[in-house]
């Protein structure tokens, strides 16, 4: 590569007095002084959350309002900081419409003091039951407050649209006699 020698010109007299530069600087700052402000005033104004944002992990229900998690514990295993703790349980007998689902979580705790918001739990979930959604602020006064229990997780998660209806399909298939 050719070496280009840049000639460094000596400063002109005006430049050495600093004055034109100072005037230019003052002009620039004055423009900013009267320009509209760019601050987002947080608690009142909320930032727009981009698509694919990884916020607080939550559990979601299917469009019929049923629990999606089958307590396979894959998320618990994959979780790098071991923030997730699941106690597997049977499906309660009174929920007839979920009888074909073998299991559900009895307890599902995510310790938000450990969670690193990596999203591996969402990625690994075969049931699409756990999602990192838009909530970005999580605070509490005690350690116990910072653990999200199952109720809280469902409250935060709500219901997301589901394209597959996996368990419904399985049930129909079973009823019609074919394996899948």
């Amino acid at each position, binding site marked *: 590569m050719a070496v280009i020698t840049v000639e460094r010109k000596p400063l002109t007299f005006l430049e050495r007095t600093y004055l034109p530069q*100072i005037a230019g600087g003052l002009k620039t*700052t004055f423009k900013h002084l009267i320009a509209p402000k*760019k*601050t987002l005033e947080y608690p009142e104004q909320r930032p727009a959350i981009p698509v694919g944002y990884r916020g607080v992990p939550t559990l979601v229900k299917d469009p019929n309002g049923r629990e999606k998690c089958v307590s396979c514990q894959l998320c618990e295993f994959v979780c790098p900081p071991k923030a997730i703790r699941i106690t597997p349980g049977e499906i309660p007998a009174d929920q007839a419409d979920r009888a074909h689902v073998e299991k559900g979580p009895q307890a599902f705790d995510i310790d938000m003091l450990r969670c690193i918001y990596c999203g591996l739990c969402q990625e690994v979930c075969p049931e699409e039951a756990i999602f990192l959604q838009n909530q970005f602020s999580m605070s509490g006064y005690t350690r116990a407050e910072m653990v999200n229990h199952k109720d809280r997780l469902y409250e935060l998660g709500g219901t997301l649209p589901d394209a597959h209806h996996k368990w419904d399909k399985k049930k129909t298939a079973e009823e019609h006699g074919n394996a899948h």
Partner: protein
Amino acid sequence: MFDFYFEIPLVIRLILQGLAVIMVIFPIAGACSMAERKVAAWIQDRPGPNRATVPWVAWIPFLGKFLQRLGVFHVMADGGKMMFKEDSLPGHVNKFYFVLAPIVAMVPALTTVVAVPFGAYFDAAGKLIPLGLAPLDIGMLAVFAVSSLGVYSAILAGWASNSKYPFLGSVRASAQLISYELSMTLAVLPVFLWVNAPGTEGTMGFARVVEFQSQPGFLGGMWFGFLMPISAFIFLVALFAETNRQPFDTVESESDLVGSFHTEYGAFKWGLFFVAEYSHMIVGSGVFMLLFGGGWNPLPWVSLATAVDFLGTFLPFAHAPLFVGILSIAIFMGKVLAMIFFFMWVRWTLPRFRYDQVMKIGWQKLLPLSIANLLFYAIAIALIQK
């Protein structure tokens, strides 16, 4: 109407006047700290402090919200914090001088106000009477003499802190003050050469300077800032240096000196340094406006008398001394506040000069320039006024 006031003994009257001026300067210094934060924020495209409010004001529909957004109540919050937090006294300092330094800082800062007239009115004979605490004939000399004492507080604070960065800061402060004091003094000499024309009573007072800037005619109504731009420029630069403002705040350069001579200070003692700094700025801006900015004359070539006569055409009370006094004080304060805004504007525009640059500008640039300026005007004035 005000006869009862003049029946009060003179001492009490002077004390009352002094207190009144201090009661104005102190809140302005406090408000300046807020304005500083606001101007900084606006220049950086932020809204600035706008959260603190007090319930009763917040209930006023429009005004309450406006004042809150303006950050007015942050001044009280800041001041209250400074008053009530623990006033710590480090174990390694020289206690007596450590406590003395902030007091010594306040004294010259508030004393210089005495010599500065801040308004004027016309008595029954139509003669201009300047308003001020003490209409001294040595006005400019008094201001120079007393304001230079401010460096003692910096030296005391730095030395008493018994810690190297405050000490370096105070050494810088004194060196910088001495360097720029010279150019500043030389820069104002042409003004007083011009004012003390042969055959007139000699004075170093400010009132005469302003009187000279309010004469009729093109040259008479010209402010000295236009007549002697170099003097005004040197005075302005030296004023920035003397008040330790950006771009000359090497004294407080927090990146290399932590916080200069007030590193070890906190709470109210630190607050006193702060108020002293702003009082210096206010008085310095006032002196600049008196010398080069026409004092209490509203516009160049429009003197206070002309303005009052113009207002008199539709305001019946325009010639009342009280109205003229308030008008002139308002004009003068407006100019001083504009200057203070300029100080802040410059602060958030320019980076700090290196210490060697500060010394080089002071000794090698400004001093020769001010001497040449003095020689030029001395010869010119000798030719014009002979």
